[in-house]
């Protein structure tokens, strides 16, 4: 909806209805229809963040580093448009919302001292200790955000970055001052436009960690990219899976502007009473969107009351020997299983649902990076035909509750290309941190792939014939949110077989669970070395690269009250 307009009034001009009543009626109509949109807001953008938490980076990641780009901590992510704006051809339409990178911050743990922290390879086994004698350059680092075209939209797209969105060289002196340390380190006012059909990657290089006699670590790294995104209309309709049966339909109240009869005397009722209708609406404040309990406000005036949101969920992070798991590193990585390790390795992450969240896309970022310093860690892409990754995302009820059950939201199984479910069927992109990267290597591997990460689509479950929009065939958006008795009844959901039925969680979901399972029926372990493609694993087949895989959920969350704003049943809105 366009902005409100009016005619100018000046002294001596005849007061006609169009000059005074029409603009007030236009505003009242917008209030009555819930059509106060982002064009009418002084602040029409909402923030969202991509937050990446990494347990630690040890010196061995940089043992093979000789020049920029050789090795790095790298993590990819994507920020595609939501389903209603998604173009299967990747065309940027004039109406496609564009994220804007506003701020970047980075922190790590120094134990509150102007010191460097030792890693597991430090002399005497002193991991996590303070080193006040370290070289002053130890924490010199470079952090960059890089971008590339996605293979899904352009088969000719390279696997290496094509543009640096921003980069910052941080001298170690930023972190070793006694009076003030720039930890967290912040770069603001970036104002970088983001292409929603491209892949982005965080790249951190800190090569001096492995320099000198005592080696060091970066501990508990937290990267936060803060973006701005135009406000959105919330998802409504019975097609939205698991949505409360009210379908999110907004209720409105009428704001009436009194129109004087022709020739009527202009009274207080007209020139004061009509503005008072709008004044009262402002006094009551305008509202819209989902409440915390998945209800909607009694009356809504806002038409754009939802925000783009991203959950970046670490999976298998820190897992295995030296924070990675390969065919020969399984001995110290798998619970209870023995050679030939024909049982799956698995990870589970549970996070509570706070505000309603409508999931539009899900992605699995598969990591093949290794430090490239020891035989079993040179980062081969696995090539076993019997290897499979299975990733599931589900809503869960039953944490301190009676109904312990799950409703599947998204699911995928993928294998190497020689397997029964080749990953190319769900590949969004392939990306490396740099052209000269050493972290993956196909020397001696039957697989020729030599890039750092796969970005794969995890399709949302499909509800019968109700198909959504996305990179590959997937279901319509999926609503999750806490409930009260009035919002427990939910619309049908799909399942991984394309069914159509009531969600087992029946509106009681309080948690979101992610599971990732890696299995090879002939064994994940190093049973043979150097087999032909499709045979058992080679010794450097990397199942979980350095610091793990990621699951990224993209969707909408409603605008929220301040925390002091409650609805009539005492639920924060």
């Amino acid at each position: 909806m366009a902005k409100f307009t009016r005619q100018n009034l000046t002294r001596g001009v005849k007061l006609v209805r169009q000059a005074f009543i029409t603009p007030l009626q236009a505003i009242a109509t917008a209030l009555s229809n819930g059509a106060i949109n982002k064009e009418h807001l002084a602040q029409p953008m909402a923030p969202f963040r991509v937050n990446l938490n990494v347990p630690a980076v040890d010196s061995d990641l940089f043992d093979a580093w000789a020049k920029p780009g050789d090795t790095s901590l790298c993590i990819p992510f994507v920020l595609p448009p939501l389903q209603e704006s998604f173009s299967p051809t990747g065309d940027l339409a004039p109406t496609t919302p564009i994220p804007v990178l506003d701020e970047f911050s980075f922190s790590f743990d120094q134990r509150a001292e102007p010191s460097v922290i030792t890693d597991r390879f430090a002399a005497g086994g002193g991991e996590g200790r303070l080193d006040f004698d370290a070289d002053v350059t130890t924490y010199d680092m470079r952090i960059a955000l890089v971008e590339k075209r996605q293979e899904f939209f352009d088969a000719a797209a390279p696997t290496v970055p094509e543009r640096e969105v921003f980069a910052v060289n941080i001298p170690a002196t930023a972190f070793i001052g006694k009076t003030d340390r720039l930890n967290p380190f912040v770069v603001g006012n970036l104002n970088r436009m983001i292409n929603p059909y491209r892949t982005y990657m965080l790249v951190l290089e800190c090569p001096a960690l492995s320099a000198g006699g005592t080696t060091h670590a970066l501990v508990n790294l937290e990267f936060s990219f803060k973006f701005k995104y135009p406000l959105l209309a919330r998802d409504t309709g019975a097609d939205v899976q698991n949505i409360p049966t009210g379908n999110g339909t907004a209720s409105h109240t009428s704001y009436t502007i009194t129109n004087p009869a022709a020739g009527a005397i202009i009274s207080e009722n007209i020139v004061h009473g009509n503005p008072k209708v709008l004044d009262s609406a402002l006094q009551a404040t305008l509202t819209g969107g989902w409440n915390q309990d998945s209800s909607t406000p009694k009356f809504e005036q806002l038409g754009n009351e939802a925000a783009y949101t991203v959950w970046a969920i670490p999976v298998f992070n820190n897992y295995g020997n030296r924070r990675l798991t390969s065919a020969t590193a399984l001995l110290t990585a798998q619970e209870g299983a023995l050679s030939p390790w024909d049982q799956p390795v698995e990870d589970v992450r549970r996070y509570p649902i706070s505000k309603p969240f409508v999931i539009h896309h899900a992605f699995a970022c598969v990591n093949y990076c290794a430090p490239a310093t020891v035989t079993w860690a040179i980062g081969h892409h696995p090539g076993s035909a019997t290897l499979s990754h299975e990733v599931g995302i589900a809503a869960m009820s039953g944490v301190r509750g009676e109904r312990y059950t799950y409703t599947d939201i998204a699911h995928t199984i993928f294998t190497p290309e020689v397997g029964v479910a080749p990953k190319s069927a769900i590949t969004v992109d392939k990306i490396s941190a740099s052209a000269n990267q050493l972290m993956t290597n196909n020397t001696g591997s039957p697989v020729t792939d030599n890039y750092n990460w796969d970005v794969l689509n995890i399709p949302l479950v499909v509800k019968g014939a109700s198909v959504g929009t996305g990179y590959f065939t997937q279901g319509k958006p999926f609503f999750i949110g806490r409930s009260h008795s009035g919002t427990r009844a939910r619309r049908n959901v799909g399942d991984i077989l394309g069914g159509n039925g009531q969600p087992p969680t029946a509106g009681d979901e309080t948690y979101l669970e992610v599971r990732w399972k890696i299995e090879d029926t002939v064994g994940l372990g190093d049973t043979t070395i150097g087999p032909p493609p499709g045979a058992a694993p080679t010794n450097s087949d990397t199942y979980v690269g350095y610091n793990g895989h990621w699951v990224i959920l993209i969707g909408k969350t409603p605008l929220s009250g301040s925390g002091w704003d409650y609805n009539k049943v005492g639920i924060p809105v």
Partner: protein
Amino acid sequence: MASLRNFYDQFSNSTTLDGSRLERLLRDIVSRFNALQPKDITKRYVETRYLLGYRPSYPALTSQDRLPWMGVANWNNAVELTGAAPEDGFQNPWRHKGTNLPLIVPDEAATDDNQYSWTTALYFSQPVVLNNIYLGLTQSAGFSGTLVYGAAPPPGYATGDSLNDMFLLVHVDDPFVRENRDLNQVAVYKGKFKLTGWSARNVTTDQPTVDMTPALGLFAPATTPLGGAYVELRNLNVPIPESSRVRFSVVIPRYPVAYDTGWFQNPWARSIFSGAIDVLESVA
């Protein structure tokens, strides 16, 4: 008739009505509704979420491979083995406030008792509201921590009593002396609470009515399904000023070997830790 609260010009019967005043009123109304301020909107925040995660490398490992867990105190034993302590002393001998446990001296002696902290620092250039804090300890066959004290509990506790020695803290750095942790403001403190009160299920062996896909194998077989504790501090409503440095810490204990607790001697390796920090950020 009640006066207009948001607009300057007021009209009533028997007062003047001229074009200048009407023009000003119309201009005020239309321009206001074309640029509504945050104060005009009940829902003017968005919840953004920091998700944290730590999976132990392998449950059997003890002294090594525990980063990001590090000691809570900066004493001589915390210094690198071949190095020296600073001549002018440690800047922050204690990293957190209120984490003392009587039986533990967190001096970081190699095989002794200690407390370990997993600390995440965040920066907020604009004011935010800290809304939720969450910490999950997922336990299973491989990650076999328990939530109770064992056969040789510490003094004051009986076998089977709930663990009562974990701390969740949110500190905000002093705005003027940012590196002095003594001056930190404690924004959230949850300490010395019974962890069993936050257990995932009262009956630890029950199975979900409908499991999700994929089902778990060795990770959580039928005999030892997923369990653990999930601590949720919701709707905290803690205002955080602009340009704040916020530190979220989880502190767990390692007791002297004489005591038997659900943390065992490698408390960082007995659960998969998941965390979330939810903040309300203003529309922009």
